């Protein structure tokens, strides 16, 4: 039993071990916040780093996120009870006309693993839904994904809708997906782009001025 054992269990995607070790650590009196900040988040950050450099792949990322969730099931109620705030809120979705979700889900998992609250709007999200959610939830970041060359146009119309609604300046806009590049992100006036799920979480923190 140790924070290191939780870290290892998440890094290796062992959900039963992550859960058991977390329970043991809690039983020993370690605060949930300490477990989150010193074991869970660092483990997911490392998963993201290894993914970025091509040493871990999608299966390993998914089972790591699954192990993190197993630990979080125990930690979440305690974190809420203790009034621990998340580092920020991200509204995420795949843009209108596009039904692909695996890339968007990976980004959401990695951002959650970095300590963000995630509001996942799913796929084929109309610009107006992004706008309504920004108004209602006051997120720090709006993250949009497009897998199709043809649906990158919906990124543009969503940014326009945020501008028209007068909420564009209240959020940082992040864009990603296979056909999306830094060039495209600059052209459409997004605040951030990331080429993969590991760097997306890092980018999100950087956009909010948080340490990586």
């Amino acid at each position, binding site marked *: 039993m140790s924070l290191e054992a939780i870290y290892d269990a998440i890094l290796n995607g062992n959900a039963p071990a992550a859960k058991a070790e977390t329970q043991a650590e809690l039983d020993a009196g370690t605060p949930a916040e300490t477990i989150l900040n010193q074991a869970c988040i660092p483990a997911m950050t490392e998963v993201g780093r290894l993914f970025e450099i091509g040493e871990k792949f999608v299966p390993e990322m998914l089972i790591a996120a699954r192990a993190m969730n197993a630990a979080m099931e125990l930690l979440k109620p305690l974190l809420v009870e203790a009034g621990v705030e998340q580092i920020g809120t991200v509204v995420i979705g795949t843009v*209108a006309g596009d039904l692909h979700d695996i890339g968007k889900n990976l980004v959401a998992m990695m951002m959650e693993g970095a300590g963000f609250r995630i509001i996942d709007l799913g796929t084929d999200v109309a610009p107006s839904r992004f706008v309504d959610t920004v108004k209602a939830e006051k997120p720090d970041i709006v993250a949009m994904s497009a897998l199709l*060359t043809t649906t990158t146009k919906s990124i543009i119309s969503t940014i326009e809708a945020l501008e028209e609604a007068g909420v564009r300046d209240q959020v940082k806009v992040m864009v990603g997906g296979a056909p999306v590049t830094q060039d495209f992100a600059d052209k459409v006036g997004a605040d951030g782009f990331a080429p993969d799920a590991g760097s997306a979480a890092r980018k999100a923190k950087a956009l909010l001025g948080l340490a990586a």
Partner: protein
Amino acid sequence: MNSRERVQTALNHKEPDRVPFDLGGTPMSGMHKIAYKNLRAYLGLPEVEIRVVDSIQQLAAIDEDVAEILKIDIHNVAPRSSAKYNLEYRDEGDYTAYTDEWGIGWRSPKKGGLYYDMYYWPLAQYDSPEEIEANYTWPDAGDPARFQGLRQKALKTIEEGKAVVVGSLCAGVSEMHAWTRGFEKYFTDFYLHPDVAEYIMDKVVELKMIYWENVLREVGDLADVVIEADDLAGQKNLFFSKEMYRKYIKPRHTKLFAFIKARTNAKLFYHCDGALVPILWDLIESGIDILNPLQKSAAGIDYAAIKKEYGDYITFWGAGIDTQRIFDQGTPEEVREDTRRNIEIMAPGGGFVCTTIHNTQATVPPENYMAFWETLQEYGVY
């Protein structure tokens, strides 16, 4: 030299009179029905009822007038569907949907939808081979209705002087695992339920073998190219590690490809997008002869380096124009520039069939398509 001889020469790594050209010869080198309608109008051709030959990607059948004008060298003699399956579109609120013969649900947004994407995976709920066995019926790969008229179609294609391409039963061995389980289960099965992954992939190999046995009994002596596919890579890297590919996928590919090649002298066409360089030698070892489409915008895809290292061993079928970055958004001049450079690298020594890097999307202007095609006419001459 007719089209078929041109293609055969290129596939044997020799230089024909000009680079062979494909449009609509495979489900990865076709044209979306909207782009096709626009192209026909641009060419001043009469309006026709556009037939969709690929329901997922909404690809148009290429009519004979277009095939003639564009001097297409390839014809796909796609086998028919099983008589036990009937494609029916249905209305589902904001979506139009259908279920395919595997029980996979597909839908497209009514507003702005250009393609169909999966939303129901028939094996997602079963986490053991026994449960699948007890609850799921696999399609009938050997249904004689699929193969009716196939030989006549191939003979007619040869009579017209074109190369004969034969399509596959379904997507690739590991893709069908993804498409029946859903992507998250597909990826995590390798750790959590490897028995399910292996069971599904073995079953798909078995069905594909039944299918190819029948197809090649009909046209094994006539086919120039047989199509298989398996997408294993994304924009930046492989979907899973090279070790995992070698353990689970490669042995099954090797078995299937050997089975096919024992029944025909046709070249084995293999489609995989993305950053696949780390496993390119493995794919060649597994038996592929042709690689499609060589996605230029993916990580590690350096045409000159790849042509030099692998060009003696495989034919590149694609590599004509970057559809992800240039084809729909670039100017005709940018299209010409990209196409010219690609041809200059890929054409020498043969081993190149030129087509767009994956299908021509709905938003590609006809001016850009013709800029691509004209550049091929100009520079694709040996």
